[in-house]
């Protein structure tokens, strides 16, 4: 139905999405005291076969964003389109088809597999729902296990017989079964051991090259995102603060929050220790976010207007968008040039 789409149309389009959760006091006749603005005006697109990295700390809205894309939550405002179709209007068969096209692999391989099902059954689940015949299912399960570099004979075993890294590969095989267009990877390697992480990252890249599947990679580790993602979105308290092609972002970090995140990365090379930006204070509550720029309470570069006026997300170079008053067009303060270069910005 969407085969006639122009190639310019991205696979996934997130348009001005907001998700506000009411904060209610009392059980039955509760009063709404306010809203937690978990996601507050987020837009980006993902093309077929590419990876978008979504980075931020707890409470930044990255998990809610991924749940909205998985159609597990309905946005308060804005819309999300997959292949040009608004996903939150889908019902019945169209919704079932959507579930096949967008799959997920979650962080914890110990809780994401049903301990009472053989891994073969777990992988076959979506094929059974899609009404495949038994011999075809068995062949496909075998093929999927081989694709994630596990022994096809392992289909008969139960999750507890596998290590964390193997389980995460089983979860990936189950996600791949329905030939999805997009897989949401929510911290797919952070629960794994260091030596296993590299295996999983290589495997994810290989599978993307073979299947042309797009990934939404939710992660807090910048080095992982650098290795995996084509474009990177940095979020803070429900807002996108910076968005750029990954290589450009890593070469030319602009937003003070992104700079602090980069500086907090603990490089595994003692000789490469760089200047540190240690942020003061805690992440504010999304229930009552700061006025103006939400980062101004912790920002080492904050100016008077930052607490009053919210900075718009503006393009500072092709494809590189930043929400910061330092880079506003016609700002005229000249601060942008001084603060723009990584390294000049010291704590």
């Amino acid at each position, binding site marked *: 139905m969407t085969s006639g789409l122009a190639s310019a149309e991205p696979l996934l389009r997130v348009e001005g999405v907001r998700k506000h959760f009411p904060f209610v006091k009392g059980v039955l006749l509760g009063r709404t005291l306010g809203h937690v603005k978990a996601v507050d005006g987020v837009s980006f697109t993902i093309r077929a076969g590419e990876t978008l990295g979504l980075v931020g700390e707890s409470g930044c809205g990255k998990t809610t964003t991924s749940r909205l894309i998985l159609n597990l939550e309905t946005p308060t405002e804005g819309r999300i389109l997959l292949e040009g179709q608004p996903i939150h209007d889908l019902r019945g068969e169209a919704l079932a088809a959507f579930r096949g096209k967008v799959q997920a692999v979650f962080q914890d391989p110990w809780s994401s597999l049903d301990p009472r099902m053989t891994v073969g059954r777990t992988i076959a689940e979506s094929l059974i729902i899609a009404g495949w015949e038994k011999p075809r299912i068995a062949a496909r399960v075998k093929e999927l296990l081989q694709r994630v570099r596990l022994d096809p004979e392992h289909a008969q075993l139960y999750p507890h017989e596998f290590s964390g890294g193997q389980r995460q590969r089983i979860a990936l095989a189950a996600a791949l079964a329905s030939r999805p267009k997009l897989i949401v990877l929510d911290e797919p390697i952070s629960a794994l051991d260091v030596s296993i992480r590299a295996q999983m*990252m290589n495997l994810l890249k290989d599978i993307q090259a073979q299947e042309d599947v797009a990934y939404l990679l939710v992660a807090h580790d*910048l080095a992982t995102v650098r*290795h995996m993602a084509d474009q990177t979105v940095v979020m803070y308290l429900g807002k996108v603060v910076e968005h750029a092609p990954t290589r450009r972002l890593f070469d030319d970090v602009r937003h003070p929050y992104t700079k602090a995140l980069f500086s907090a990365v603990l*490089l595994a090379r003692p*000789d490469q*220790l760089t200047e540190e930006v240690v942020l003061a204070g*805690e992440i504010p509550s999304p229930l009552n976010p700061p006025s103006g720029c939400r980062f101004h309470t912790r920002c080492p570069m904050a100016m008077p207007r930052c607490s009053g006026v919210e900075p718009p997300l503006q393009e500072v170079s092709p494809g590189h968008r930043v929400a910061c008053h330092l880079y506003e067009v016609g700002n005229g303060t000249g601060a942008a040039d001084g603060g723009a270069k990584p390294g000049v910005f010291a704590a």
Partner: protein
Amino acid sequence: MSTDNVLEVRDLATYFFLRRGVVKAVDGVSFDLKRGEVLGLVGESGCGKSLTALSIMRLLPKGSARTVRGEVRLAGENILTRSPREMREIRGRRISMILQDPQTSLNPVFSVGEQLREAIFRRTRGSKAEIMKEAVAALRRVEIAAPGERIAQFPHQMSGGMKQRVVGAISISGYPQVLIADEPTTALDVTIQLQYLKLLKRLQAETGMAILFITHDFGVVARMCNRVAVMYAGRIVECGPVARIFQQPSHPYTQALIASVPEMSGAVGRLTTIDGQPPSLMDLPLGCRFAARCAHAQARCRDAYPSTFTVGPEHVADCWRLDSQ
């Protein structure tokens, strides 16, 4: 013993005795912790690093786990032979510990002040006012803003970073000579992690305590430690100054581990991987425990556990490749 060392661990072995067999989780661990230094203990899950810490603290899980041999010398005296009552006096005052998850380290039904005051009272037996004053000072030391108000709060009213600061305040309230920190920042956000590491460094500089820092993250090692010991399947396989371990890792396991970490600069390519799994701790091989996954393994590696070879100043590794003869 050398007077430089505040803690000396010698041939420590802790096993789990199960019906199915004996799990040799810590199997002959030896290291020194010098006064005022930070020694990193790095390894993957199941390598025995946390159990090493619990064996030193003598806080093994009740039941199947038992320390079967070795010595833990704290300022020269072996604390493995001390009575449980004596150990209670040693813990908190001379050796203390911070665990990974601040959520479970603190008691949810007591205010942080009560928990802190309990720790201080056990040491000083002072008056109420004195203890209160000291508790507020302890919170201030771990950089908690408005400590006078925070002290009456309960753990659920605090963020993860703040709770971990409270745990830190309790741990160092007895001015211990040795602090064991077991993945203290793993549950924290990255910007909060950096704050916490800086705090620990500052406290260490002020008090001169030695820290045994347990982690799986080489980034934390690079930022925090003076020396690092790498553990694999119940043994320390390599130990040396941090800069040397990163520049010239000598054990193939350390080399592979460092090479598999993605970098923040340079070309993005395929990552180096370590294939296979660590051996079962119930059925350990006779020789080197890494041999089955090692690219350089020879017949000798499978036949006998390698000796410890010196590869540089304070830098040792257990690998037959280093045997020059």
